[in-house]
């Protein structure tokens, strides 16, 4: 169900951007999502298609790219990938179920994951935000966004 809030954020962001730039019709939105959120793409698209009605995104399609996170420990300097913390992620998900903390708030990941070498939670996370990566504007082609 959290996918509905995520879709809401995406539609509001791109709608605002379209209005600010005087674009009246958006034809495609591409988003990047941290894969450790385990957001369901079918539900996300369903929500997007419902929420986009009556906005500049009315006739747009949503493309979703799941991105694997990487972690760097500020305590010992170790770097590791999302695959390497699969066991930790599975453990958290089994404790909580579908709406697990990192599904709802990916920024909580340092609190729930720990360094494989020293056990610290002092992690810098690469890819932890849901980002609008590309927008296609009718008559203008694809625009890569900048944060």
């Amino acid at each position, binding site marked *: *169900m*959290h996918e*509905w*809030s*995520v879709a*809401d*954020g*995406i539609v*509001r*962001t*791109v709608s*605002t*951007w379209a209005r600010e730039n005087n674009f009246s019709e958006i034809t495609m939105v591409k*988003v990047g999502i941290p894969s450790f959120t385990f957001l369901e793409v079918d539900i996300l698209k369903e*929500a997007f298609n419902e929420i986009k009605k009556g906005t500049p995104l009315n006739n747009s399609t949503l493309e979703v790219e799941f991105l694997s996170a990487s972690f760097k420990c*500020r305590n010992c300097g170790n770097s590791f990938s999302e695959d390497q913390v699969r066991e930790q992620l599975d453990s958290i998900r089994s*404790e*909580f179920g579908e*709406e697990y*903390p990192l599904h*709802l*708030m990916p*920024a*909580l*990941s*340092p*609190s*729930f994951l720990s360094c494989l070498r020293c056990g610290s*939670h*002092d*992690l*810098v*996370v690469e890819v*932890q*935000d*849901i*980002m*609008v990566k590309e927008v296609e504007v009718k008559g203008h082609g694809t625009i890569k*966004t*900048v*944060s």
Partner: protein
Amino acid sequence: MEPLRQLAEDKLKGRKVIAVMSAKGGVGKSVISSLLALSIGKGTLLIDMDVHTMATAKLFGFNSMHNVGKGGLEPFSVGGIGLISLSGVVKDNYVLLPGNNVGKVMESLVAYVNMEGFKTVVFDLPPGLGEELLTLERLTGNRFTSLIVTTPSKVSIKVVEYLVRYLKERRVNGFLVVNMSYFNCGKIVRPFGGIDEAKSLSERYG
């Protein structure tokens, strides 16, 4: 383009925002924000932004999870008001975060909430002059009313003056709340000192 920030800003737009704050810890922010929300009553949402303590849910005795609907996290209901707490997301796990993640979790606590039916949002802020204050500014465009809480102690007043001064610079409306002024145990005692320092602070900053 940041969907999280956009959603959080939109959720607060048009709503009255009151931030209960202090540069100092343990002065009564959680107690006062709870009493304030209850006294404003129906249509008030209390959000605990102290992501490390999550004290407000504990004050009210909540230890369950927030339901998640199409509109977002459903607030707990108590005494006619709504309550949002990070403990409704993490259960009884601790929340230990590096500095720059704190602001993003706070943004999430605003963005992902179902605010339907709420006209007033009361924020119970953590102590400090850091991510919590900067995030509040980002999400409200400085359109909030501030209740600055202190005890009468000289040290507390000196610390709180930092916040008063900063908010004055940023042109945010502020009210000073002096809590724990006295204790009545058959006679009036003032464990944290008299009221003069607080009065002086209040006068100096209008």
